[in-house]
């Protein structure tokens, strides 16, 4: 049997980096194939070439035995290839049917479209009301809109880019049911992820990319997660070392914190209360868009609240701005590196000054101590192994992992009493991620109270002492991580967000 899609020697180079270097693999009809690799391994470039967004420099693709050279996504869709992106392209102020229509080549009339949306959503166990506003949907439901938009085009190959990063464990199960059903009906699925357990449960074949090259292919069910990880990273991984520690007094206390979101479709914080002791790491999980950003802003001081809602070492700080809180030892690192935690076009020296001017005494009567700022930037670069020619380089010239090490290092080296971080290792390669997690643990060991907001549950399990979940702006009661099961975590994260579990009629012989 000829494979559905065969890729031979596909190469794509960008200035200074070869994103894909003679990549070859094939997908059979109905196969669920994983594309596995770290951030920056070239997965996205590869699927963009398949979807017609990027043109390869070299190599050929064959679709059902015929040459396939998509110049645009339009042509890719005509050839039965559909893609669900990691970042949704939906309009929040429009309803589901309107959003679906916007992504179609020839949308049918509205009533007909609504009927077909219902039909597809029932067949595949993806309940969705075509008349609801996308702004009111959870992330999992938004993903359904994207998937249904693809399914309406009756695709032969469905590409899914990191689909589970926005889902709770329960929602992941629902998605997998749907994907299995599609697969038994003959739709091939190219599944991109770096989550190994998922790939082991779902996929029949896997191609592993590292630094743009195929370093191996395997049946993921025959490999352990660790073996897959080591193929992906190319080295042996070491697990951060927690060490035993004694907890001190309460360093950060949040009591009945409620903040209305500035954005109409944003998430307001509702009645959040928690305490973190000296030397403790509180992990806050939750699906993206459940108030993580807003919580960080309220803790860093960018959003001000009533004084008593937040206390640091017994002092009310709710009404203080970021610099006054820094003076008291409350430091933070937001999720978005470029543009929020760091100014992209400014040098690392200037970026060091961005948050360190107070605690490092880098201003005198308002005048800047550039030599001191440069020295501090160099210290951070040396201590956190930031790979860069020097502190005069612009922040945007650093890779994601290196910039993140700089951002985290900049705060950690200011000796915080309370450190709040959102997504510390998002989009960071595995070795940098391990380094950053170890730095957080060391900081806790020195007696800092740490609030780590993250969407990566494995990360939270690895470093936190206690775990709580944000769900629609509310925080569950924190619980000790030891003994917590993935099922319980899922329920804390809001279960399936009211989504029904799909019961597609699975034909006999389906892959389970």
């Amino acid at each position, binding site marked *: 049997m000829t494979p559905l899609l065969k890729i031979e020697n596909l190469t794509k180079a960008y200035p200074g980096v070869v994103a894909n270097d003679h990549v070859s693999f094939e997908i059979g009809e109905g196969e669920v194939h994983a594309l596995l690799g770290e951030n920056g391994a070239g997965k996205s470039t590869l699927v963009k070439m398949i979807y017609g967004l990027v043109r390869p420099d070299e190599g050929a693709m064959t679709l059902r035995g015929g040459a396939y050279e998509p110049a645009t996504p339009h042509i890719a869709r005509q050839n039965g290839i559909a893609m669900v992106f990691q970042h949704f392209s939906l309009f929040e102020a429009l309803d589901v049917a309107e959003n679906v229509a916007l992504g179609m080549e020839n949308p049918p009339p509205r009533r007909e479209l609504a009927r077909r949306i219902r039909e597809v959503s029932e067949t595949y166990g993806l309940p969705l009301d075509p008349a609801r506003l996308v702004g009111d949907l959870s992330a999992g439901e938004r993903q359904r809109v994207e998937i249904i938009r693809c399914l309406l085009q009756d695709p032969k190959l469905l590409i899914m880019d990191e689909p589970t990063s926005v889902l709770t464990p329960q929602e992941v199960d629902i998605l997998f049911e749907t994907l299995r059903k599609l697969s038994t009906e003959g739709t091939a699925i190219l599944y991109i992820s770096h989550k190994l357990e998922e790939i082991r449960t779902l996929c029949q074949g896997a191609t592993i990319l590292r630094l743009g090259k195929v370093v191996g292919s395997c049946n993921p069910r025959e490999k352990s997660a660790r073996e897959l990880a080591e193929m992906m990273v190319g080295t042996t991984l070491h697990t951060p070392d927690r060490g035993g520690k004694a907890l001190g007094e309460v360093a950060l206390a949040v009591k009945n914190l409620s903040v209305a979101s500035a954005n109409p479709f944003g998430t307001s914080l509702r009645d959040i209360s928690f305490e973190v002791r000296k030397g403790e790491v509180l992990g806050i999980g939750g699906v993206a868009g459940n108030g993580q950003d807003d919580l960080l802003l309220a803790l860093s001081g*960018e959003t001000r609240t009533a004084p008593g809602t937040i206390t640091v070492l017994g002092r009310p700080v709710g009404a203080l701005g970021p610099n006054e809180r820094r003076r008291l030892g409350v430091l933070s690192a937001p999720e978005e590196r470029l543009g929020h935690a760091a100014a992209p*076009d*400014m040098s690392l020296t200037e970026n060091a000054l961005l948050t360190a001017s107070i605690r490092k005494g880098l201003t005198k009567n308002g005048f*800047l101590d550039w030599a001191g700022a440069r020295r501090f930037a160099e210290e951070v670069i040396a201590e956190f192994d930031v790979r860069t020619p020097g502190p005069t380089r612009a922040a945007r*010239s650093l890779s994601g992992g290196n910039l993140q090490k700089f951002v985290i290092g900049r705060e950690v080296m200011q000796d915080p009493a309370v450190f709040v971080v959102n997504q510390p290792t998002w989009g960071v390669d595995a070795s940098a991620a391990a380094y950053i997690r170890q730095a957080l643990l060391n900081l806790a060991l020195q007696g800092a109270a740490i609030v780590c907001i993250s969407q990566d549950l494995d990360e939270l399990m690895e470093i936190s002492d206690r775990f709580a979940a944000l769900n629609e702006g509310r925080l569950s009661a924190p619980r000790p991580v030891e003994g917590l099961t993935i099922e319980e975590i899922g329920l804390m994260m809001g279960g399936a967000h009211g989504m029904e579990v799909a019961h597609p009629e699975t034909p006999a012989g389906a892959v389970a």
Partner: protein
Amino acid sequence: MIRLDRRPDPSRAWSLATPPLAVLATMIAGGLLFAALGKPPVEAIRTIFWDPVFGEFAFYYRGQLLVKAGPLILIATGLSLGFRAGVWNIGAEGQYIIGALCGAGVALAAYPMESAFLFPLMVVAGALGGWAWAMIPGILRTKFNTNEILTSLLLVYVAEQLMAKMSFGLLRNPEGSGFPGSRNLQQYPSAANSELIAGTGMHWGIVAAFVAVIFAHVLLNRHIMGFNIRLAGQAPRAAKFSGVQPARLILFCLGISGALAGMAGLFEVAGPAGQITPSFNVGYGFTAIIVAFLGRLHPVGILLAGLLMALTYVGGEAAQANLGLPAAAIQAFQGMLLFFLLAGDVLTNFRLRLGRPEVA
């Protein structure tokens, strides 16, 4: 095929090379324009760029150069601070007019009293007038989130009406036999902003422009306020994270650019112009926007750009007189300069590649 590739770091070399290249390109395109108008292109370019500085009558033109450059530099320096922070004060022309009205108003109220304190008081009144006029868009922006580009621009026309009203009414010279316009401050010793060194065109406004350039340079490079201004312009969210309060910064930037524009107006009305008339303003407030960008929003760059722009004014007038070039041709010439500058800016952030990209 030409392609643009984004540079990882903005190119410093291109950033510095763009202004001279833009001037060169303007000379060439301007020469073509003059040739199309039937004028000798080389001679026209020489009349504009060479003669005012090194020609036969340079002793006259050189003084004019400083007189024109002074207000442009003073206003552009103030504007550049706001532009760096992403605060777009387009209404410096209006603040310039109000500054002149307030300063002249103080002088005319005191007339004919002679006092050494009068001129400093006028400077303060001029700066306050410009500041207050700039506070209108400032408060509208911070309280009601109004776009300051629109409000500051529209206030220019209000200021122009006010000035016309004043020169026909309150500030009209009672001994002016009915002509519109105020008393001539040059004939009022305590209020006159006269030449400091005869024949150079040097007056207090030019001194103030130099001081402003130094002040802005120190502020931007050595002071936390200047750092915050740059930060807010480049990465507004990072600025908030760093603890900058946007509203304060907006008011600071608008206030300082308004005050400097107001001072420029006062120095002009008490010096080269001499009196408030309906045609007092000649567009310095708008030309200063070009000067600010031509100077890369950098104080020293603005100093040079102000002198260059003054040269096109002075040389342009010479070309009008000697070669009969239309006034609009000179304006088109100045516009071309800004156009080439902005086009050249692309090269600071992007790399030009010819042909198909090679595999690295």
